[in-house]
C-alpha cells in the first residue's frame, strides 16, 4: 500500500516540473513562436531559487528570484527574436547554453563549488497539509501533503485553459499562431502578443525550475534540468498544445520518472532506469506520428 502511495506521489513530483514548463510553452506554441528555451529558463530558475532561499532564508524570495531569473532569459529571447528578428531556433539553443554556462559559472563564483551545492540553510518550499482531506483513507495522503507548487500547478492548468480558450487574450494569442498577418491587420500587434506569451512562459518555467531545486530536493546541481525542457516540448507537440492534454502527458512522464526510481530498489542499474522517461517519449512520439499519418489519409 505504502509502495503504491509512494509510486503515485513520486509520479506527481515527477510530473510537476514538466507540467509547469509545458503550460508555459503552450502560450508560445499557440502564439506561433518556436520556443525551445524552456530548458534554459527552468535551469536559471532552479539556480536563482536556491540563491534566494539561501541568502535570504526565505523560500518566497527564492521563488521570486526564480521567476526573475527565467524572466531575464525571456527578455533576452524577446530582444533577439522579436526585436532583432534573429532565428528563434538559434536564439533558443544559444539561450539554453547561456543558462548552462552562467549557472555553472555562478555556482563556482558564488558558492565556490563545482557540481552540486547543498546546504541546510536552503529553505525549501513547504508542503501543504489540507486538514479534512488528509484524513480520507488512501487518497488522503496523496491529495494532501504535497508541495505548494504542486497545488499551484493544478490550479494553473485550469487557469491556462480559461485564458487560452475563453478570453480575448487567448483569441489573440491563437490568432497570432494561426495567421499573424490576419492579427496584424486587425489592429493588434502580433509582436506584442508574442512578447506577452514569452513572459507568461517564463513565469511558469520559473515555478517549474523552483520546484526542482526547492521542492523536489533542496540543492542545485549543474545542468539539473537534465532535458526536462525538451520533454515538455515533446509533450506540447504531442497534444497540440491543449492544457488538459498536457496535464495527462505530464502525469505519464512523471509516472515513468517515478518508475525509474522504483525499479532501482529492485536492482536495475540506475543508468537504465534513468533512460525510461526518454524511451517513453520516443514511444509517445511513435504513437503521435501514427495518428498524424492516419489523419492525413494514407497516401504516398
Amino acid at each position, binding site marked *: 500500500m505504502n509502495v503504491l502511495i509512494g509510486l503515485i506521489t513520486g509520479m506527481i513530483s515527477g510530473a510537476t516540473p514538466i507540467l509547469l514548463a509545458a503550460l508555459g510553452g503552450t502560450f508560445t506554441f499557440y502564439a506561433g513562436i518556436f520556443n525551445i528555451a524552456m530548458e534554459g529558463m527552468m535551469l536559471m530558475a532552479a539556480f536563482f531559487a536556491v540563491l534566494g532561499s539561501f541568502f535570504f532564508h526565505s523560500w518566497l524570495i527564492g521563488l521570486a528570484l526564480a521567476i526573475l531569473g527565467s524572466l531575464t532569459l525571456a527578455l533576452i529571447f524577446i530582444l533577439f527574436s522579436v526585436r532583432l528578428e534573429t532565428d528563434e531556433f538559434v536564439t533558443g539553443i544559444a539561450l539554453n547554453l547561456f543558462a548552462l554556462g552562467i549557472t555553472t559559472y555562478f555556482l563556482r563564483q558564488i558558492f565556490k563549488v563545482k557540481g552540486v551545492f547543498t546546504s541546510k540553510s536552503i529553505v525549501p518550499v513547504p508542503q501543504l497539509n489540507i486538514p479534512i482531506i488528509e484524513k480520507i483513507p488512501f487518497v488522503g495522503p496523496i491529495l494532501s501533503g504535497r508541495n505548494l507548487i504542486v497545488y499551484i500547478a493544478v490550479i494553473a492548468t485550469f487557469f491556462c485553459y480559461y485564458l487560452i480558450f475563453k478570453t480575448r487574450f487567448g*483569441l489573440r494569442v491563437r*490568432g497570432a499562431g494561426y495567421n499573424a498577418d490576419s492579427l496584424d491587420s486587425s489592429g493588434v500587434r502580433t509582436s506584442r502578443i508574442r512578447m506577452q506569451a514569452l513572459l507568461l512562459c517564463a513565469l511558469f518555467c520559473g515555478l517549474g525550475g523552483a520546484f526542482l531545486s526547492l521542492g523536489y530536493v533542496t540543492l542545485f546541481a549543474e545542468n539539473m534540468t537534465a532535458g526536462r525542457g525538451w520533454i515538455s516540448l515533446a509533450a506540447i507537440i504531442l497534444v497540440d498544445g491543449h492544457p488538459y492534454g498536457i496535464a495527462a502527458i505530464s502525469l505519464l512522464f512523471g509516472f515513468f520518472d517515478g518508475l525509474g526510481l522504483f525499479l532501482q530498489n529492485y536492482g536495475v542499474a540506475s543508468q537504465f532506469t534513468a533512460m525510461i522517461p526518454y524511451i517513453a517519449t520516443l514511444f509517445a512520439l511513435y504513437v503521435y506520428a501514427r495518428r498524424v499519418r492516419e489523419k492525413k*489519409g494514407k497516401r504516398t
Partner: protein
Amino acid sequence: MNDLIALHNIVKVYPPNVLAVDNVSVSFSKGEIHSIVGENGAGKSTLMKLLYGLVPFDSGRIEFGGVNVRFHKPGDAIAMGIGMVHQEIVLIPQYSVWENVVLGAEPIRSMGRIDSRAAIDAVRSKIEEFQFNLDPLAIVDDISVAARQKVEILKLLFRNVSVLILDEPTAVLTPQEIPQLFAELKRLRDRGHTILFISHRLDEVLELSDRITIMRKGRKVATVEASKTNKESLATMMVGRQVIFTSKRTPHRRGELVFEARHIEMERSDGLKLLDDVSFSVHAGEIVGIAGVEGNGQFELVNSIMGLEQPNRGSFLVKGRDITSLSILERRKLISFVPQDRGKMGASLSASILDNAIMTHHRLEKQFSRWHGLVLDYRKARDFVDMLKERFSIQMASRQSEFRSLSGGNQQKVILARELLLATPFFLMDQPTRGLDVGSIEYVHGEILAMREADRAVLLISADLEELFLVADRILVMHRGCIVADLMTEKTTIEEVGAYMLGGRASA
C-alpha cells in the same frame, strides 16, 4: 469635388534599392469609386499599403479630411475610418466568421472573458444591414472564397470605416460572382463610402469606377474620368506603348497523342473527392488550357501528374507509357514543368542562378557528370548558364548571384529556359504568367506558342481566362474535381466558360 484623402509627393524605396513609388500625388473624393490601375509591379498595391500604414513611406505627406496624418500601423488607419482588404485573404481559417470579424475589437465581460453572445448578435445585425448573406457561426475554412472576401469587408464595416481599399478583389472570383460584388460596392458608394479599387483588369475598372488613376513604374501617369476614356487608351498609358489585344495564334494541325489522363480519382481522408473521374488528352502541337476557380482540383491534378501525390485510382500516360507509379525523376525524362509558385516550388531563392539552372539537367544529362556521376562538372554548368543567358536574354548580374536578386520576369525566364531545354515531349505549366509585367507576359506567351510550333504537347493551367483565350486551342473547365467542359476555343466565349467554372451548367 471635395477631397477626402490627398497624397502629396509620396516616395517609397524598398531596401536595398527598389523604387516602388516615385513622387506620386493623387487625391480621392468622398462618395466615389476610384480605381488605381497599372501592370504588375507598377506600384499601385504599394501606394495603398503606404496610405494604410502597413508599410512606412520615405517622404511626402498624406492628408485626411484636410488634416495631415501618418499611420504607423493598420490600427491607426482603421481608427480614422480607412480599411483595406488585401489580395490574399488574411482571415484565420480555423476561426468562425464572427470570431474573425470581432478579432481586435472583441466585446468583453469581466476578467477579459469574451462576450460571445453579444459578439454574434452584433455581427449578425451588420450582415443584415449590408445584405451580405453570411452565417456568423460558419467556420471560415468551410466557406467559399467569395464569401471569405465578404467577411473581410464585413470586418472593416464592423469598425465603421468610411473608406474601403480593395486590392485585386476580382482575382479570386468567377465571372458570375463579380456583378454581385460590384452591386454591393455601388451601394456602399451611394451611402457615402469611398471605394479605392486596385486592379489591372481594364474592362471591370471601366464598368465600376467613377474615376481612374493610372500608374506605371512607380509614377502616376494620369487621373481620368471613366466615362471619358476607353480600354485602349488606358492600356497604352499603363504600358507606355500600344498593346495588342488579339491573339497571335495561327492554325496548327495537331499531331499524335502525347499525354493522357484516364479516370483519375483522388479522395481526401474524410471521403471528399478531390479529383473525380478526370480523363482528357493532349496531342503534339496542341495547347490545352484548364480553367477553373482555384481550389477545384487543379493543384491536386498537377501534383499527381508530377508525382508529388498519388491518385487513388486511374492512370497517366505519356507517349503510351504509364507513368502513374514512376518516380519523379523518371517522369522528368518525359515532362517539363513550370510550377505555380516560383519561389516555393520552382526554384531555391537563396541558391545561385547557376545552381537553379542545372536542376534536373544534373541528373539527366551525362555532360554534367564526371567520375561516373559522382562529381558535377561545374565548367560545363557555367557554359550552360552562359548559353541560357544569351539565348533567352536573361538579365543577371552574375551566374553566382542569388536567384532572388533577379526580377520576377527574369526568374521565370530562367525556370522556363531550364525546362524548355529538357527536350521532353510534354510540357505542364501552372499559372506561368502570375505576377509578371506585361512585357514578360508577352514573352512567355510567345514561348508557349513556339512550343506548339515545335510540336510539343502543352497543358496550361490558368486562372486568367483572357490568357487562355489568347493561347489555348482547347479549354477544359474544372469544377469540384471534375472536368465539366471540353471546349474548342474558337467555338466558345468567356461567359460560357465562366458559367462552367461556377458549375452552372453540368456537361454531358
